[in-house]
C-alpha cells in the first residue's frame, strides 16, 4: 500500500492476467463445498486478493442475482469483465463452470457410492453448517456497509422480510425495492454533490 502511494502514478493495481483469473475462479469453483458460493467469491476476490472493493462486489452481486441466469455464473462474468474485459469475463465463467463440471460428471460416473454412506451424509451436513458462516459473514458485512441512514436500513429490512418471512420471489422483491432505493440514492447524491 505504501509503495503504491509513493509511486502515485498507477492508482489501479496491475490487472490480473487471463490465466490468473481462470485459476482464481477455478479455485473458488472447486473448493466451494457446502454452498454459499458468493461468500467464497467475496472472501477470495475482495478480502484475500483485493482485486476489487466490497462495494463493487456487492453491487455486482445484486445485479447478478436480479438478472436471469445462475447467479454465481453471472457474478463470475461481472467480476471477470471488471478485471480484464471480455477475456476476463470468459475466463471467469469458464473457471467457475468447467472444472466443477468435470468433477460433477466424474462423481456421477463413479455412481456416488462413497457419498451415500450415512457418515458421509453427516460430515456433509457439518460442512454445510460451517459454510453457512460464509454467507452470514458476507450478509453482516454488507449490512454494516449499507446501513447509512434510515432509508437504506428500511430498504434492507423490507427486502429481508419480503424474501425470508413472506417468501416472495426474489425477482419481484428486487424489481420493487431496487428502483426505490436507487431513486433515493440518486436524489441524495445530487443533493450531496
Amino acid at each position, binding site marked *: 500500500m505504501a509503495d503504491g502511494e509513493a509511486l502515485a502514478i498507477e492508482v489501479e493495481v496491475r490487472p490480473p492476467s487471463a490465466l490468473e483469473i481462470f485459476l482464481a475462479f477455478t479455485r473458488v469453483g472447486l473448493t*466451494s463445498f457446502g454452498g454459499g458460493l458468493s461468500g467464497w467469491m467475496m472472501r477470495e476476490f475482495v478480502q484475500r486478493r483485493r482485486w476489487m472493493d466490497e462495494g463493487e462486489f456487492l453491487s455486482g452481486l445484486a445485479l447478478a442475482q436480479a438478472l436471469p441466469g445462475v447467479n454465481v455464473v453471472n457474478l463470475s462474468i461481472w467480476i471477470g469483465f471488471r478485471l480484464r474485459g471480455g477475456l476476463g469475463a470468459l475466463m471467469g*465463467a469458464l473457471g467457475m463452470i468447467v472444472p466443477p463440471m468435470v468433477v460433477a460428471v466424474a*462423481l456421477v460416473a463413479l455412481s456416488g457410492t462413497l457419498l451415500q454412506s450415512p457418515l458421509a451424509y453427516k460430515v*456433509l451436513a*457439518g460442512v454445510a453448517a460451517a459454510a453457512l*458462516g460464509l454467507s*452470514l459473514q458476507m450478509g453482516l458485512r454488507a449490512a454494516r456497509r449499507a446501513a447509512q441512514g434510515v432509508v437504506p436500513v428500511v430498504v434492507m429490512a423490507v427486502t429481508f422480510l419480503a424474501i425470508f418471512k413472506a417468501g416472495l420471489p426474489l425477482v419481484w422483491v428486487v424489481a420493487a425495492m431496487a428502483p426505490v432505493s436507487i431513486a433515493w440514492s440518486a436524489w441524495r447524491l445530487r443533493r450531496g454533490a
Partner: protein
Amino acid sequence: MNESPLLRLLLIHLPLSFLTVGGGQSIISELHRQVVPVQGWMSDAEFLNLFALSRMTPGPGALLSSMVGWQVAGWAGAIVASFGLFAPSSVLVFGLAHLWRRSRGAAWTKAVEAGLAPVAAGMILAAGATLLQAAEGGVLAWAVAAASTALLMFTRVSPFLLLGAGGVIFALLLG
C-alpha cells in the same frame, strides 16, 4: 421422431437459461418434468440421486444439468446441456457489464451502486436465514454456523479449516 438426444438436451436448456434465478433451484421442477415424464430419460429415483449428488459437489448447483446431460448422452451431453443452460443468460450479463463500463463514473451508475447495496444486503441475509432454517442438525448446526460466522468476521482463518472442523464435529457428535 428419432431426433438426436443432444439436440433435445440443447432445446430443453436454452429457455431454462432465462428462467433461472438465484442458485438455479428455480428450474429443477421443470428439468425434472422434461427429463423424467416427458423424455423418459431416467426414473424419478435416478433423478433424485443426481439431485442429491449435485448438492454435494463443489461449484454451482445448476451443474445438475451437466450430470443429466452426461447420463443421457455422455460427455457431449454434459457439454451441450451446460452450454444451453449457461450461454444465453451469460451473453445478457456480458452486454450489461459492457454498457456499465462505458458509463463508468456517470451519476446514474453511482446511484445504482449505492442503491443496490441495501437491497443486496437484505437478499444475502435472507438467503443465510433461509439456509439456517433448513440446516440439518438442529441446534448443533446453528452453533457451528454461529462459530464459523464469528471466526470469519474477526479472524483471517481459512474457510477450509472451518469446513473441515464442521464436518468432524458433526461426525463425532451425531455419529
